[in-house]
């Protein structure tokens, strides 16, 4: 009997990993096909992020640095979409820059989507007057330093090639410090860490950040130390923000799949450990 159990456990431990993959896929796809609504409460750090935007006077300039690419689209694009809706709705001026080559198309997509929303369209927002996308710039921290000194020389042209000197909105925005709030949407490095360390303190930025879940624990010390006024981490952060802004989107919809994925991984860790210790114990 013992031997039988031992052999079964041994075989279980040597399980072909394709079964694991299949289970994972099922855990994710099923809730997406059959949606289950699971209520959740927004995280305090996300609420503070939301608050930081709500507290801005109308017409303030918000600089958004979108430093991510399609790789982290599912986590951050819902945030960016909700962010633009929120900023436009609050009648704030928006300047966007990107340190990642893959970001500008995603940004344009999010802006276009926000402009078409029924609560934004009547506002008649104009490109270059109410918002502008400066596009991508390589050089990482060097760009941050450059922007702190002079955005006009760091980004001589906007994404569509218009010289910055001809953009009305940019006349109010000569250096990083001219923005009333700095929002960093970050998918890795260069991202929140670099912005905080290179620019936040040095140029005295009021800064909030949305980052991928992977980066969130790294950024919590900055949030705790007050260097970030608010922080939204991962798909949960995006879902929280969607809730707060009142625009449940793809992040909110993904939370059920997220739940099952986590539970499956926990189950794997538990089963793997139980089987491992039982077989090891017997062998001795």
């Amino acid at each position: 009997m013992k031997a039988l159990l031992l052999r079964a456990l041994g075989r279980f431990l040597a399980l072909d990993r394709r079964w694991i993959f299949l289970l994972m896929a099922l855990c994710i796809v099923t809730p997406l096909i059959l949606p289950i609504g699971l209520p959740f409460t927004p995280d305090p750090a996300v609420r503070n992020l939301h608050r930081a935007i709500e507290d801005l006077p109308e017409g303030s300039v918000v600089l958004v640095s979108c430093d991510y690419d399609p790789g982290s689209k599912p986590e951050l694009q819902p945030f960016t979409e909700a962010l633009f809706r929120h900023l436009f709705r609050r009648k704030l001026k928006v300047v966007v820059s990107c340190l990642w080559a893959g970001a500008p198309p995603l940004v344009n997509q999010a802006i276009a989507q926000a402009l078409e929303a029924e609560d934004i369209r009547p506002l008649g927002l104009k490109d270059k007057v109410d918002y502008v996308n400066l596009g991508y710039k390589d050089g990482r921290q060097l760009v941050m330093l450059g922007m702190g000194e002079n955005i006009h020389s760091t980004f001589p042209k906007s994404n569509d090639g218009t010289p910055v000197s001809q953009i009305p909105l940019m006349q109010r925005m000569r250096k990083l410090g001219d923005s009333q709030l700095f929002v960093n949407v970050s998918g890795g490095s260069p991202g929140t860490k670099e912005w905080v360390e290179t620019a936040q303190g040095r140029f005295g930025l009021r800064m909030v950040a949305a980052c991928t879940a992977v980066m969130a624990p790294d950024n919590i010390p900055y949030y705790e130390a007050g260097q970030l006024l608010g922080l939204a981490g991962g798909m949960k952060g995006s879902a929280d923000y969607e809730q707060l802004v009142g625009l449940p989107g793809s992040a909110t919809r993904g939370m059920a799949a997220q739940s099952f994925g986590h539970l499956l991984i926990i189950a794997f860790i538990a089963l793997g450990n139980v089987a491992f210790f039982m077989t090891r114990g017997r062998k001795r």
Partner: protein
Amino acid sequence: MKKEIPLLIAFLLGTWMILENFLSGFSWVGPMKESITNGGIVIMAFTYVLGIYSIVSVNVARIRRGQDVVPKVALLAALALMVALGFWRGHEEGTPFNWLYLNLYVPLQATMFSLLAFYIASAAFRAFRARSLEATLLLVCAILVMVGRIPVGEKLWSAFPQVSDWIMNIPNLAGKRAIMIGAALGAISTGLRVILGLERSYLGGE
């Protein structure tokens, strides 16, 4: 001469980049810093020529040897196509270049990335063992955080999010801070070693 000049360049620029932080009151510091940083960007852009040289020569050699001909040709063709489209019609929205980016590059990259969800599942089953007290701490914290971040966790026990917040705010914060402080010291001393020329091996031999 072959080593002294580079060492001098590194020393002067490194020292200057430290000092300029404290001299921002002077009006000439800003433009000078901007020029220096722009120069760095330009130099690094040039190394891409070396990169392309490396990638093309490696792949052409493979094709000549008859290894993986189809994929290697596809690689070079895709590269050439992107570059040609980019220089021919630009990279703005609505161009063929952008279309390929959105419909090929984006899904390929995102899918590569998402393979990790599956790898983690297999690693969770295979590698994460509570072998020691430390490893057990790691696993317990990981599980609590995972449960606390999902709606189901909130449903199971409403305090799970708080527990996970506590882990994030106390032990995680302390651990991260210790690493950050240690790494910052390591970074400062390593950087100084380079600037002061104590470490000069990056300049190569002879």
